[in-house]
């Protein structure tokens, strides 16, 4: 092994010579930076890491990572990553996708990738808009959103991406935001550590076509009241001084004031609890509404399940065990032959 292998990479080592071409002020810059520092910190090997993307602003991502990468076609990155991971289980494979790429044109591939559970990390940059095509509504845009293609407001009921992922039996579901670098690094690390398909939804601001879509969650003034950061084994608390908490009232989560209730009365976060995770993904109120529940961020759900690529290889190993290493002549001959003199 050469000495370069053991040298600690820095975020800069993972950058390419290509100019980053996102609009100035785009949330994508922050995500790229956190990815570079997280992977450098994790001590990855550049040659064993692959970024696969589809089409959309976020999908330019692989060009800026000095690893292997493929900027593929719209919606199909998850399918391409599946074939790659099936044949090269030892690689670290990341899918970079957006709300249109993953949930509209690539919706079918996303749900099937989640249920199959390849060890692949999927980063879904959700900006609730089509940016690359200059501002049409997306499958996550709120109903009524006025865009170029919906001058009288969008008619579509939006997707709740994490609830969809729960429905597809994903084994790792998390949410983070471009404006909270520290949180994002922690989530990227957790996803990287998870064995199985990780889906990370990142709230990402498109400052050109949908500026401020998540401002209520990211702005210093409103963030404490409208967000709740999930920490394993800890009670769900939020507010400027963490003076509020979430309590389960039967099957319904409700906001309570600490003082009226003690911390022991609150919901304790347990990412292995599927029932709780289902409720957490449904904490999806429009923040403009009165009494809206705060929006959760963090790892919602995590489960150990067999990896597709392992099971696939397992069948090959088993076939070799039973039949022995394949013999081409035997294959070509087949079962019945006859001789002509």
């Amino acid at each position, binding site marked *: 092994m050469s000495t370069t292998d053991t040298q600690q990479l820095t975020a800069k080592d993972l950058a390419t010579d290509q100019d980053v071409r996102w609009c100035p002020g785009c949330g994508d810059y922050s995500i790229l930076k956190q990815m570079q520092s997280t992977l450098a910190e994790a001590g990855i090997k550049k040659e064993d890491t692959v970024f696969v993307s589809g089409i959309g602003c976020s999908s330019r991502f692989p*060009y800026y990572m000095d690893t292997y990468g493929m900027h593929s076609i719209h919606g199909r990155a998850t399918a391409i990553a599946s*074939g790659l991971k099936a*044949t090269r289980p030892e690689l670290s494979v990341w899918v970079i996708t957006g709300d249109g790429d993953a949930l509209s044109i690539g919706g079918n591939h996303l749900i099937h990738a989640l249920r199959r559970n390849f060890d692949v990390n999927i980063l879904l940059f959700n900006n609730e808009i089509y940016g690359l095509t200059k501002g049409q509504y997306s499958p996550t845009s709120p109903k009524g959103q006025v865009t170029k293609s919906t001058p009288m407001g969008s008619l579509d009921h939006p997707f709740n991406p994490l609830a969809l992922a729960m429905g597809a039996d994903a084994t790792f579901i998390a949410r983070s935001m471009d404006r909270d670098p520290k949180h994002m690094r922690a989530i990227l690390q957790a996803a990287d550590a998870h064995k199985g398909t990780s889906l990370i939804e990142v709230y990402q601001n498109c400052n050109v076509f949908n500026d401020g879509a998540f401002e209520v969650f990211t702005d210093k003034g409103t963030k404490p009241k409208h967000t709740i950061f999930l920490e394993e084994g800890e009670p769900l608390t939020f507010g400027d001084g963490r003076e509020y908490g979430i309590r389960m009232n039967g099957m319904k989560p409700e906001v309570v004031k600490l003082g009226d209730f003690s911390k022991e009365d609150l919901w304790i976060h347990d990412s292995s609890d599927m029932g709780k995770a289902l409720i957490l993904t449904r904490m999806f109120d429009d923040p403009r509404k009165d009494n809206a529940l705060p929006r959760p961020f963090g790892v919602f759900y995590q489960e150990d399940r067999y990896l597709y690529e392992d099971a696939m290889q397992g069948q090959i190993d088993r076939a070799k065990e039973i039949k022995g290493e394949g013999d081409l002549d035997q294959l070509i001959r087949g079962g019945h032959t006859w001789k002509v003199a």
Partner: protein
Amino acid sequence: MSSATEKKDDVTILFAGDSGDGMQLTGSLFTNTSAQFGNDISTFPNFPAEIRAPQGTVAGVSGFKLRFASMDIFTPGDEVEVMVAMNAAALKANLDQLKVGGTVIANTDGFDKKNLRLAKYNEEANPLLDESLDKFRVIEMDVTKMTRQALVDSGLGTKEIDRCKNMYVLGFLYWMYNRSLDNTEQFIKEKFAKKPEIRDANLRVLKAGYYFGDTNETFTTRYEVKSANLPSGEYRSIMGNQGTALGLIVAAQKAGLNLFYGSYPITPASDILHELARHKEFGVKTFQAEDEIAAICAAIGASYGGSLGVTASSGPGIALKGEAIGLAVMLELPLLIINVQRGGPSTGLPTKTEQSDLLQAMHGRNGEAPLVVIAPSSPSNCFETAIEAARISLEHMVPVMYLSDGFIANGSEPWRFPSAADIDAINPRFADAEKELDNGVYYPYRRDEDLVRSWATPGMKDLQHRVGGLEKDFETGNVSYDPENHERMVRIRKEKVEKIADYIPEQAIGQGDQKGDLLILGWGSTYGAIRTAVRELIAEGHAVSHAQVRYLSPFPKNLGELMEGFDQVLIPEINDGQLIQLINARYNKRALPLNKIKGMPFSAREIKEKAKELLAK
């Protein structure tokens, strides 16, 4: 009792019945027995798209045509000599194929009032009773009744007993053609090893059918079709889809790669998936994807990772894969796309054959997206053509479209199989960091003299690079919107495909002289019918030759020159004229079309008639 034996050179039998009557199995068993006996054989299964179409109706008829001969043959026969009709619908659906003087073996139980009504015969006009079959010899047997009698004490239920009916017919035909029961008995013993009562019932009915011929005095003549004078060697029977699957496995092994097969079930391509899934001991990874697009994209992912990535479908599925095929063209990765063609457009005729996706293969993508197109010509030829397709793809870093069709995919023939050692190794163009790093930089789109780039797969140190569907800079491989660069890259991708003509054989005349009055130029599955027609035309003294084009993109270098040796060129196709468009657009020679678009292959006679018409001019 004694019976006379009449010698025959060539017999075509059609087994026809309800899709649940087991006609495909019956035909296959007769095929295997005849092949092992040493006849040359050619088969053509023809079944409805519905798994169990309404019983007794013409729509539900399933047929298996089998030709066996004491000479070498290339088609499943034009006219049927013996037809087994398990019911009235089977007779109705196929009577036009039976030659005058041919034999109908009719299961009388299938001609009762209900069956006549379902087959839309006038109830009062039973064809077995009126004069409508006067031109034929009719053998009536109440197969149902005799099968039930044979198994009266078997303890089986009526439903299970009736499932043995096909064995009765098979046994009778074995008697008629002097065939041994051994092969089929062996098959039954293996197949029903775990169900002894079903095994015994099938064996008993098979013999009952045989003895019926032997003891019944109405049958005075048996036939004998001697073994064919095939080249000496060891043979097996092979179906086209099977040949394709085996070829893929061999190709991957010969290239030292793992085979990844991404596919979505579709008729008539699914049997390739089934066959490959059985051979995991060769490291074959089969992936049944969520849709056609995912199937090809997963194959592209596998190719990017250094496997032999293959996807297969039929026309509608290939249409869905179009964008991803374009991506593979842009990425310049090896990829095999198999299209087992069927009748189109849209859902078309799923179980019927057609050659109507040639222009889709050539042009069915956005942008200028050239690739290699190659077509096997017979069931056994699928094997070597699949290997050839993989070789071109891996050695030239280019997607290859392989155009099989329903006719050869499901047809079978004897195959003098090669030894694995006689198949050449395939040399993938893997990148080598030592050679390719230029001042520490890897340029993924630098090319050799054949315009082939190198294959750097993840895990190769210092060769990290990014590829994608956006246009590439000629030198660096980075995204480029430069107008000059785009035109240059479009031309390079085309030239790369054209240069492959230096690595494929020149077009040969398969039969006949290099010059003459008429060249019949075919591609794909029309091979057998054209070959038979040309053999007969030559025997009759005509100056006719046959060439079957395997390489459709790029064409063999000498193709234009070869056509110049003939006064006329005829191109028969199972479509409305696709190869002819390519030929007439490219070469000076004006070829003439012969088209059939009925979901059925050509008969040799159809080609011969057209050739004679041209020769008379």
